[in-house]
């Protein structure tokens, strides 16, 4: 497969004005402003192949959206290189912009006073979509998103979820090859989140569009992205399969034990490296050091009347929470 996105040592540093609180500092800033450099993205490198769906994850302010904005040509990097579909994004060539799309969860490209269909037609003209292809694509997207009844209502009268459907149609009408999605399910109810996820998965399967998604909802990432890139404090911490994230970054596993005899003694004698984190009706959940999981499992099987036992990676949210907490410490 050919890499359609190549990012090499990409960095972005913002220069932000800084002022201490108070009147004196306010007056001083009139004469002399002070600035602070904030490194939003630091030397990140990765490559993406055609058709991949990638989840960009990280806490608030990690640098996910800044990276996406550089790849979409909205921001100039401070240093480093990026090539998307053979173009340097921030040169913002029309041929490049016609082949990518960026859907921003909280920046709308719909005109509020008029029905979505009118905005779609304007976008069709801007992206020079031939009329027959426009109608075909619009019909397909409207059917997939089940939004036939929204097309003729003014956008201002639509709900948040309905507007997001419109944003997705607007972003896909010209069949882009790369789709940057920034928090597409932000603020949506669970049912609408699920519907949009199903749409994105189906659309990716049908069209082969490459998708890079940022979301704070791990359910989005779990449902859509076999591969994740974890960014924290602007640095790339992990790039690989979602299933490998816990293995690589969480130093512990969970052992769930159901005991045949419901009486679990309080003073259970556990080997070092194991910690009971949940105890309920003869069921125990232990957190154990990853390296000690096999020996502790063997110990439990020997020492206790075990009816059932499973060894699991911790939930992805717990792993991320731990990484974020450690990173902030």
């Amino acid at each position: 497969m050919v890499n359609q996105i190549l990012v090499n040592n990409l960095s972005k540093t913002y220069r932000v004005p800084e002022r201490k609180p108070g009147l004196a500092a306010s007056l001083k800033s009139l004469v002399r402003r002070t600035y602070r450099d904030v490194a939003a993205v630091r030397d990140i490198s990765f490559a993406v192949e055609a058709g991949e769906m990638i989840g960009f994850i990280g806490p608030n302010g990690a640098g996910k959206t800044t990276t996406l904005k550089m790849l979409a040509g909205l921001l100039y990097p401070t240093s480093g290189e990026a090539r998307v579909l053979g173009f340097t994004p921030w040169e913002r060539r029309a041929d490049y912009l016609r082949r990518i799309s960026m859907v921003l969860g909280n920046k709308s490209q719909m005109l509020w006073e008029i029905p979505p269909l009118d905005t779609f037609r304007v976008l069709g003209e801007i992206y020079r979509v031939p009329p027959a292809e426009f109608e075909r694509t619009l019909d397909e997207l409207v059917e997939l998103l089940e939004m036939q009844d929204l097309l003729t209502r003014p956008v201002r009268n639509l709900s948040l979820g309905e507007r997001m459907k419109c944003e997705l149609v607007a972003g896909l009408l010209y069949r882009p090859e790369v789709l940057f999605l920034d928090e597409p399910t932000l603020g949506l109810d669970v049912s609408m989140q699920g519907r949009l996820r199903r749409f994105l998965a189906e659309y990716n399967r049908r069209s082969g569009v490459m998708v890079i998604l940022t979301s704070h909802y791990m359910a989005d990432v779990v449902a859509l992205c076999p591969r994740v890139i974890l960014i924290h404090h602007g640095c790339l911490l992990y790039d690989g399969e979602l299933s490998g994230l816990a293995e690589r970054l969480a130093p512990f596993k969970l052992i769930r034990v159901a005991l045949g005899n419901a009486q679990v003694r309080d003073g259970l004698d556990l080997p070092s490296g194991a910690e009971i984190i949940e105890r309920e009706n003869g069921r125990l959940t232990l957190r154990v050091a990853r390296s000690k999981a096999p020996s502790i499992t063997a110990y439990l099987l020997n020492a206790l009347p075990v009816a059932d036992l499973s060894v699991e990676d911790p939930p992805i949210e717990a792993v991320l929470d731990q990484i974020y907490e450690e990173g902030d410490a």
Partner: protein
Amino acid sequence: MNFRGGWALIKSTWLSWMQHRSFFFLLAFLWMISPLIYLFVWSTAAGDKTVEGLTRGEFVAYYLVLILVNQLTYSQTNWTVGDLIRDGRMNVLLLRPLSPLYDALSAEVASKVVYMAFAIPMAAILALVLRPELHVTPRGGLAFVPALALAGALRFFWGYWLALLAFWATRADALLALQDSLVFLLAGQVAPIALLPDLMQKAATVLPFRYMIGFPVEVLTGQLDGVELGIGFAFQAGWLGITLALFVAMWRTGLEHYSAVGG
């Protein structure tokens, strides 16, 4: 150049604006107030005589033409461009394979249609009541069209490059307010340029503001001889060239500073 895209943008902006036409009619009315005040001040001052060679009817003609020229050249998007940059809404425009300039131009064209739907009937009614004396010569009529077009372009790009300062400073729109004050003083609104004190006349001749409003009005109302007309066009074209260069330079360097705030 994507004219189809630009035309589609104009149509959609116009449709969108027509949903709020009463608001825009009110704006058009408010922009008439100041010229109307000066129309009454100067026409009253002239009475049955003349002021600096202008009769009461000529003052009426001057200000009625000025009302229309002012609204045709007024560039309200200059105010909105700074906001688009500050709050990150420019992101959506920058993602399109069409210069964001099209968006501003489409808003200008759409708005002119809405404003003129109000301003032309109003000016016609005022003309019936106030009886202007307008002596349009063939030369003045012919020269008015390019003078008006250049004035519109100059006012649009001058405001636009000032608005682009928002790439660097958060409150650059203060400069737009200053610009509007200078337009008020030196573009022929407070008084025809010929009536200004000597120093202000000289400043008005050299600075760009007269060429945004006053110059086309003077051309149509026959206040300029051939030499003055030539000098006026030279200044107008010169300032437009400088303004376009400033706009291009600010746009290119500004994009590198753009922080694309918001998601």
